């Protein structure tokens, strides 16, 4: 049996996804995963108490060679997850460490380690294959969750 780079990427993503799933009751997030045929996409729903509901889309193409692409999509996307959901600024959190749209692209960018835009264009260093513990996909979800609860709105 031939193991392709795509198979290796799927296995690496699944390992991290299983860790996220294992803690969903503890941290109150909800998870889903889809296979587009070329790569996996993880969806994580995080509800801020007395606040908004956020849905993260993590496109894991060529993981861990490159970091997952983090986007915020409509909350409805969680119930019908697909890669057809378009991200939009209105679905993004706001607050400290969020770079507003038009500064680095058409969407706001979370300045938080572990996702592709954070490292793009040499903005920050630190991505490696395999990723360091504090840059891992699981830790990204945890960091975003903590930021939503404590820093973002």
């Amino acid at each position, binding site marked *: 049996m031939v193991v392709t780079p795509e198979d290796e990427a799927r296995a690496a993503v699944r390992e991290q996804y299983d860790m996220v799933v294992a803690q969903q009751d503890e941290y109150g997030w909800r998870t889903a995963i889809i296979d587009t045929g070329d790569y996996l996409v993880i969806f994580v729903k995080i509800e801020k108490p007395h606040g908004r509901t956020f849905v993260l889309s993590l496109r894991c193409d060529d993981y861990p060679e490159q970091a997952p692409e983090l986007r915020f999509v409509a909350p409805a996307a969680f119930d019908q997850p697909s890669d057809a959901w378009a991200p939009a600024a209105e679905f993004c959190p706001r607050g400290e460490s969020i770079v507003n749209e038009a500064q680095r692209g058409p969407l706001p960018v979370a300045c938080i*380690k572990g996702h592709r835009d954070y490292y793009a264009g040499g903005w920050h260093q630190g991505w490696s294959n395999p990723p360091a513990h504090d840059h891992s996909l699981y*830790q990204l979800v945890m960091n975003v969750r*903590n930021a939503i*609860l404590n820093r973002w709105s």
Partner: protein
Amino acid sequence: MANHEIRIIIVYGTNKPLDVKSDEAIGTVKVAAMGLFGIPASEQGQYILRAKIDGTEEQLNEAKTVEDYHLHTDQKVTLAAGTPFGCA
């Protein structure tokens, strides 16, 4: 109060038990928790411990002790990145 040992649960993707003493500093507990997951002590500045204290999740002060927070057996303590942000 007499020094005694309890077993807390460190959460970092998977859950792992850690035996700690009541007079142990949170900073020491953190390094031990990192060791459970193969994270070298040299990276301790990049991590924090969080736990629910009186129903509210908060970052634990590393200068305080296990007893100061009344951590108890089977209490879940989260190991998390302390400075995940790249800019203000």
